[in-house]
């Protein structure tokens, strides 16, 4: 198990959870995600490891506008949305799959404390969501025990809400991948 991606058990558990609740598409996504992590761990991916790709702001901004435009004029869950999301998947993987370079930024006490606090918030959020899902199923009442999806659904039914949500989602992705940040 040496060198195993520590996220792999999390992905496999999530995969099993989706299988048990009968969400086959979600299970497929986490199954595929697990396969990518295993291929990377076993160094069995058929692709060579490139250096970090770069995208300029204009390309990303135009991509975001086109995507928001598609979601604005399409019906939620329509084929256009599916094609758009499927097209974004390889782009996102390609922007992620590059050689690690340079030393890892140092772990100070402040960084450890910050990480602990953010992880705590994330776990609390996940547990709240899980219990809302369980109670909603036990009591057959997702209005008294709404998951985040139930709360966000009315916003996503509106074309404006969907487009704004898409831009926010893409900005989060861009922020996490550091595409627009200057390389140190």
């Amino acid at each position, binding site marked *: 198990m040496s060198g195993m991606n520590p996220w792999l058990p999390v992905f496999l558990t999530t995969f099993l959870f989706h299988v048990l609740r009968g969400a086959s598409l979600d299970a497929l996504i986490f199954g595929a995600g697990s396969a990518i992590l295993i291929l*990377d761990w076993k160094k069995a991916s058929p692709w060579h490891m490139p250096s970090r790709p770069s995208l300029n702001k204009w390309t990303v901004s135009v991509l975001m506008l086109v995507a928001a435009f598609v979601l604005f004029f399409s019906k939620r869950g329509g084929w256009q949305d599916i094609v758009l999301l499927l097209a974004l998947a390889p782009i996102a993987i390609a922007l992620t799959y590059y050689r690690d370079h340079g030393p890892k930024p140092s772990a100070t006490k402040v960084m450890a404390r910050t990480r602990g606090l953010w992880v705590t918030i994330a776990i609390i959020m996940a547990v709240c969501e899980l219990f809302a899902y369980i109670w909603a199923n036990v009591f057959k009442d997702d209005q008294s025990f709404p998951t985040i999806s139930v709360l966000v659904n009315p916003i996503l039914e509106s074309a404006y809400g969907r487009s704004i949500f898409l831009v926010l989602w893409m900005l989060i992705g861009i922020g*996490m991948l550091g595409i627009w940040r200057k390389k140190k």
Partner: protein
Amino acid sequence: MIPIIEYSLAILAGVVLWLWGRFRPEQIAPLGDLVDRMMHHRNTRLAVVVVWWWLGWHFFTV
């Protein structure tokens, strides 16, 4: 109603932590620095991007 209060408190805690990092970086590291450190390894990058993409799929196509 209870889950809404819980989600709101968690989001509020996140906003407080984010602002704290911006204005008191000697006590709490800015969120950008934490993300930089977290995304340094390909392991984490791959996992995070799969979860991010799944969220988009879940919200926009279901």
